[in-house]
């Protein structure tokens, strides 16, 4: 876990790490990774991953429209919106 890795994952996470904390964060993350590295002590070559404790099949929906028009409510909770759209600073493509 080095400076470069931390820069990459903080970019992927859209988090800024200010310089004064940087070293501490690098250390913390390294310790945590070192700590979880003990997982390598056990052989799992034959073991299927377990993503969820419920090994069941998912319930699914029928194809029915149930949603109401929540436009007003939703735009109200938005940090920035006009009467029709959520707004963000102009994205240039």
């Amino acid at each position, binding site marked *: 876990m080095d400076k470069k890795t931390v820069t990459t994952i903080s*970019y992927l996470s859209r988090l800024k790490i200010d310089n004064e904390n940087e070293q501490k964060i690098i250390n913390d993350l390294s310790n945590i990774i070192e700590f979880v590295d003990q997982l390598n002590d056990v052989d799992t070559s034959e073991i299927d991953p377990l993503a969820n404790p419920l090994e069941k099949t998912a319930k699914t929906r029928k194809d029915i429209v149930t949603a109401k028009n929540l436009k007003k409510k939703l735009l109200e909770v938005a940090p920035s919106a006009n009467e029709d759209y959520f707004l963000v600073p102009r994205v240039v493509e």
Partner: protein
Amino acid sequence: MSWETVIGLEIHVQLSTKSKLFSGGSTKFGAESNTHVDLIDMGLPGVLPVANREAFYKAIRFGLATGANINQTSSFDRKNYFYPDLPKGYQITQMTQPIVEKGSIKITVDDYDKEINITRAHLEEDAGKSIHDMFEGETGVDLNRAGTPLLEIVSEPEISSAKEAVAYFKAIRQLVTFLDICDGNMAQGSMRCDVNVSIKKSGDKELGTRAELKNINSFKFIEKAINFEIDRQIRLIENGESVVQETRLYDSEKNETRSMRSKEEANDYRYFPCPDLLPVIISDKELKEIKENLPELPEEKEIRYINEIGLDESEAKIISSSKTMANMFEAASSKTDDAKLVAKWLVGDISALLNKDNIDIDESNLSAENFGILIERISDGTISGKIAKSVLEEVWETASDVDEIIQSKGLVQIQDESILEDIAKKVIESNPNQVSAYKAGKDKLFGFFVGQIMKETQGKANPKAVNEILKDLLK
């Protein structure tokens, strides 16, 4: 130096379900902005997705029609990235267990056929829409489309020209519309595609570096974008530079592709199994039902038209190639005994009118009912083919009823021999010179007499009868 082009397509097909892939939000196109957004589409804290089973059924139809493997256990993964029209900060897709794998589809280019293999077709949710040009300094986000089910169809890199790419796209479009899993409406973005293009020296084994062209949504642009990109890559390499692996945006106005590297930097989607969704399992019974209810596909129709109805191959191909044409043909044929005549008119006069107005047959004024009756009136001798043309033109304009037109304009053909004979005699009496010239051996003049009779009857005389009568009288 000669180059080979290697192309792979990723086609995003909007599945025509009523509700979204993971919510009860409506998928209807063209609604007022942000009115079809459910709590789930919005990605509010604490909401949970529930998969729409119908989307699986539609995906499976595609799989069966392309002879693919159906994974009866398929699961969802998350693809993580930030964008304003991606409400949750991740897209739910199928990475490790797609519903459909290993199919293929036949394409036809000018003079040859080719089989293109389909790597996989998986379900995923569509994003919303970002509107960049409507507000000063700001981008507007409309989430109506967010969560609409997509079937992403990924081809093997086996396509070797822009033409083949277009043919492949057209074949997929034809198939999904026949399967009734997508409306195929390109203008509304119901089908969009990303194209991977690379070039390599002829004969080289390994592939060159590819560029991905994003979000192209018309046949024309696919061809242009690919051809531009091929030239660009060849130029690069021949100038000793090299192709970078990157995403490029096709600009249809400038007809060029340009780098979107800005968005690419250090991208890592961190796929992992979606912990909110357990695997979906499709039972053998469900699979069997879908198989049994699979609609008839173009190739099957073509063969049936030729063998059972007796159309010639060219007719059968044209009619079976479009769902609306095939529907019109089959509906009209049920109104008359002369399906072959239906086909003749469909590929002849009607296609001509369609081209002239540049519309699809289901947008025209011609109903299958009316069309069937028109053909019936020709084959039962009520009107002549010539009259039928004018009737068709009137229907085309006014959508009025064929029989009414025939009655109101008195277009019924004259069969009665005695009436025709009287007219013929008048014509002969009033043209003595032509008669003597004909009898002197000028056979061509026969047509002249026929013409005169048609003139007298405004074309309503039954031509066959007229011929016989004239032959008699001019002996």
